[in-house]
C-alpha cells in the first residue's frame, strides 16, 4: 500500500471516516500491538493456569481436562509447609528491608545534598548484575571455611561447626538483599516529596524531635512504607533462587515447588494450581493496596 493511497482514502471516503473518528482511532492504533502482547502472553496465560490445574493425567500419556477441583485442597495441604514458610521468609525479609532502608532513604532525602542522585544510583547499580551471579557471590562469601564463617567462629558468634550457607538465616538474608531497592526507592520518593517545614512547625510548637518524627514524618512517609512493603513482599514470596542456592530443601519456598513440579517432576496440574493460588493471593493484596493508594502511585513506585 502506497503512502499516497493511504492518505487519499479517508478524504474520498467522506462520511464514516471523519476526522473525529480518525482522531479516536489513533490512540487505539498506538495501544493495540502492545496491549495484544500483554493479553496473549500475560492475561490469558494467568487465567489458563486454572484450566491446566484442573486436568489429570501424567507427563508421558498427556493430561486431559477432568475438572478435578480437589487439586486445590490437595496441593495446598501437601505443600502447606512451603506456603507458610514463604509467607514467613517474605515477611521477615520485608521487615528487615524496612529497617535497613528507612534510615538510608531518610539520609538520602534530607542529608545527602548534592550527593543525592549519586547515592540513588548506587542503590540500583548492584542490581544491574544478574540475580544468579549475585546469589552465587553470596554463596562464595558464606561458604563453610570461608572468610566470613571463619571470622565469626573465631569471634565465638558462630559455633565450632556453625555454618551460614544452607541455613534459614542465609536464605532470609539473601531475599532481604535482593529486594532492598524495592523498599528503599518508594521510601525515598515519599520522604523527598515531604514538606520539611511541617517538621519545623512541629518542633517550633515544642514537640520533641522524636514526637515530631512520630507524628509528622512517619505519617507522611506512610504511603512510601506501604508501597515499599508491598513491592518487597510480593516478589519475595515467589522467590526460589535464594532458597535454592543459599538453603537446603528444608528452606524451600512455594516457588521451589512450582519450579520443580513444572520443570522436573512435570506434574503440571499441581504446579499450575499452586501458581494460581499464589497469583490470587497477590491479586488480593494488590486490590487492597490499589484501594488505599491508587493504582497510579503504585505503578510509579514499582518502576522507580
Amino acid at each position, binding site marked *: 500500500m502506497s503512502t499516497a493511497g493511504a492518505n487519499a482514502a479517508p478524504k474520498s471516503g467522506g462520511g464514516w471516516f471523519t476526522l473525529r473518528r480518525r482522531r479516536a482511532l*489513533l*490512540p*487505539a492504533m*498506538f*495501544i493495540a*500491538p*502492545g496491549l495484544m*502482547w*500483554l*493479553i496473549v*502472553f*500475560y492475561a*490469558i*496465560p*494467568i487465567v*489458563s493456569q486454572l484450566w*491446566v490445574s484442573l486436568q489429570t493425567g501424567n507427563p508421558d500419556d498427556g493430561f486431559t481436562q477432568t475438572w478435578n477441583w480437589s487439586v486445590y485442597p490437595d496441593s495446598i495441604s501437601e505443600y502447606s509447609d512451603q506456603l507458610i514458610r514463604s509467607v514467613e521468609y517474605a515477611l521477615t525479609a520485608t521487615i528487615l528491608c524496612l529497617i*535497613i*532502608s528507612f*534510615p538510608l532513604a531518610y*539520609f538520602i532525602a534530607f*542529608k545527602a545534598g548534592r550527593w543525592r542522585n549519586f547515592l540513588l*544510583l*548506587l*542503590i540500583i*547499580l*548492584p542490581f544491574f*548484575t*544478574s*540475580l544468579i*551471579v*549475585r*546469589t*552465587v*557471590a*553470596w*554463596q*562464595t*562469601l558464606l561458604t563453610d571455611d570461608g572468610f566470613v564463617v571463619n571470622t565469626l567462629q573465631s569471634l565465638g558468634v558462630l559455633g565450632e561447626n556453625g555454618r551460614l550457607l544452607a541455613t534459614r538465616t542465609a536464605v532470609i538474608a539473601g531475599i532481604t*538483599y535482593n529486594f*532492598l531497592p524495592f523498599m528503599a526507592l518508594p521510601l525515598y520518593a515519599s520522604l523527598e516529596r515531604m514538606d520539611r517545614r511541617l517538621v519545623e512547625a512541629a518542633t517550633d510548637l515544642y514537640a520533641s*524531635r522524636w514526637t515530631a518524627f512520630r507524628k509528622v514524618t512517619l505519617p507522611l512517609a506512610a504511603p512510601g512504607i506501604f508501597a515499599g512493603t508491598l*513491592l518487597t513482599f*510480593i*516478589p519475595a514470596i*515467589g522467590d526460589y*533462587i535464594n532458597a535454592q542456592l543459599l538453603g537446603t530443601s528444608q528452606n524451600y519456598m512455594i516457588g521451589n515447588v*512450582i*519450579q520443580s513440579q*513444572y520443570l522436573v517432576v512435570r506434574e*503440571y496440574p499441581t504446579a*499450575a494450581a499452586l*501458581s494460581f493460588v*499464589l*497469583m490470587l493471593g*497477590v491479586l488480593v493484596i494488590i486490590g487492597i493496596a490499589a484501594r488505599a493508594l491508587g*493504582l497510579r502511585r*503504585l505503578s510509579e513506585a*514499582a*518502576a522507580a
Partner: protein
Amino acid sequence: MRTTLDRIRDLAIGAWAILAIVYLFIPIFVIVLFSFNDNQGRFNFTWQGFTLKHWKDPFGVEGLQSAFTTSLSIAALTTLIAVTLGTFIALALVRYRFPGRGPVNGLIFLPLATPEVVLGAALLGWLLTLAFARGYTTILIAHVMFTLGYVVVTVRARLEGMDLHIEEAAQDLGANQFTTLRKVTLPLIMPGVAAAGLLAFAISIDDFVVTNFNAGQTITFPLFVYGASRQGVPPQVNVLATMLLIAVMTLMVLNVVWQRRAARRDARVMPEIELPAR
C-alpha cells in the same frame, strides 16, 4: 538550634546509610575480585592469587560464548520491540483521553507486580496447552512481556514532564499529527525512551526466573551460570558480569548527562517561545 544530640543522631543515620550501601556492594565486590582469582580446579570459592588470565580469555569455557551471545541478541531484540510498543502506549495514555484507560493501565501495571515465578509458570502452562515449542522465540516473547510495563512507565514520566505548548505550537504552524510526533514529540522524549531501552536491556539480559521456565533447550547467560553453579562457576562468568556492569554503568552515566543537557536546552528554548505571548 542544633544540640550535640542532634549531631550524634545525624552521624548515626549517615553511618547507617553508608553501611547499607556497603552491604549492597558486598557481592559486587566479590564478583569483581574473583574475576582476578587464580583458582585451581573447578571451584572459585577461595582466593588463591591474582591473575589476568580470565580477562584475557573471557570465553575460555565451553558453552559460555554461545550463552552470552544468545543473551545479548535476545536483550537487543527485546529492547527494540518493547521500546517500540511501550512508547506508543505511553503516548496514547498521556496525550489522548479514550474509554478503557483504566483497564489498560491495570494491564500494564499487573505484570510489574506479579511474582516472576508466576509470570514464568503461567506462560509455560499456556505454551504447553498450545503445544508450542519452547526456545529462543518463547524467551523473546516472555522478555518483551515483562519489560513492556517498565518502558511504558519510564516514557510516560518523561512525556508528562514535557510542555504541551511545544506540540501545540507545531500544530499551529501547520504540522499534522504525524509530523508533530516525528519532528517534535519523539525527539523531545528521546532521553526518556533511551532510559527505558537501557532498563529493558538490563532486565532482559539478567533475567533468570521467567527464562528458566520458557527456554526449552536454549541457554542464556544466567541459565549457564545457574547450570554451572552446581559444579562451580568458572571465573570467566565473573569477568563477563563485571564487563556487563561496567557497560550498563557507562550507558547510565551517558544517559544522565544527556537528560541534563536536554533539560537545559528545554529551559533555554522555552522562554524564547513564550516571550511574544507576553
